[in-house]
């Protein structure tokens, strides 16, 4: 391949493609994810384990997931159809989680409290 200066590079459409890197949204997402993780880590020490703490952890995790999927995986900039075809099946998992976790509680109840 011929050796050439960057400004003479072209993509498939034949446009010159060397622009300035646009990293600002990426770094903003990074800042959010790192900040949330640091906050979670802090919370694990300053707050005693409770349902409230677990709920905060889960909500913050969903926020982190949003930044990764929307910004890093670029889903925010895809068409609505693609966004929905990924998000609707994922929503089904909420029921799986609710159903099986409560099922686990019932099984535990049957094992430990059946003869009480």
């Amino acid at each position, binding site marked *: 391949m011929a050796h050439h200066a960057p400004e003479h590079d072209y993509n498939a459409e034949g446009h010159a493609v*060397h622009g300035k890197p*646009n990293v600002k949204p990426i770094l903003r997402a990074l800042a959010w994810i790192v900040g949330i993780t640091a906050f979670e880590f802090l919370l694990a020490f300053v707050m005693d384990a409770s349902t409230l703490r677990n709920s905060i952890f889960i909500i913050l995790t969903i926020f982190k997931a949003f930044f990764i999927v929307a910004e*890093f995986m670029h889903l925010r900039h895809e068409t609505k159809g693609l966004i929905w075809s990924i998000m609707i099946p994922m929503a089904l998992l909420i029921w799986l989680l609710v159903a099986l976790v409560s099922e686990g509680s019932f099984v535990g109840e049957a094992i430990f409290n059946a003869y009480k």
Partner: protein
Amino acid sequence: MAISTTATQNAAYEAPRSGTWDGGNEPFKASYGKLMMWFFLLSDAFTFAAFLTTYGMVRHRHLAYTGTPEAFKFSTAYWPIPEKVFNAFPGLHGYDIPLAFVALMTMILIVSSVTMVLAVEAGHRMDKDDVQKWLLWTILFGGMFLGCQAWEWAHFISGTDEGTLMADGSRFFGANLTMNQYGPVLFADLFFFITGFHGTHVFSGVCLLVYAFIATTNGTFHKRGHYEMVEKIGLYWHFVDLVWVFVFTFFYLI
């Protein structure tokens, strides 16, 4: 007349994949490969969700530890609290440093995700040198994460100095699939399966990244006119990071 009829009939052959019923429509404005990567990741997300849901179910089936964290002792009678299991740090033997190592691993993987975005971004600009640079950083961080996980597993398997006094009076150190010093048998099993399945994904991700680096260096993507392969591997890599974010919360924090 005969010629023009033939020409009309052959329109689909002369300009293939351009008609409405000939694959010419792109409703999602994403290439076939990217779309299939998304749907693969969706199915993979179901697999990991099944693992984590199983963890939740099994954990609720066991008794929860109700005392203070200071008074915690390993026992098969209740589910262990993570800050007492994952409290070791390489080089600081004997110190109680809860969750620090796993927080470090999380940071390493998040940073690798950022270097991956930068590689994809450089690909959009057809900047071969930048793609190479950021892919190398991503491979480095991915390898670091795998190294950390190897240490984490080695520590989990070999156990603490004290071990745990078992019901038959013997002491047991560390963990295997049928016995462990930390708590119920399924605790260690789920640790091995969930972090192991995730680690396998990281390992395949690193292999794909090494391939992408070699192909970039050879100029394969540049000659092709686009760096879509880097983008697709990037999607996979971010997904691995995403799964870790959930594993971190459900396995180590809650």
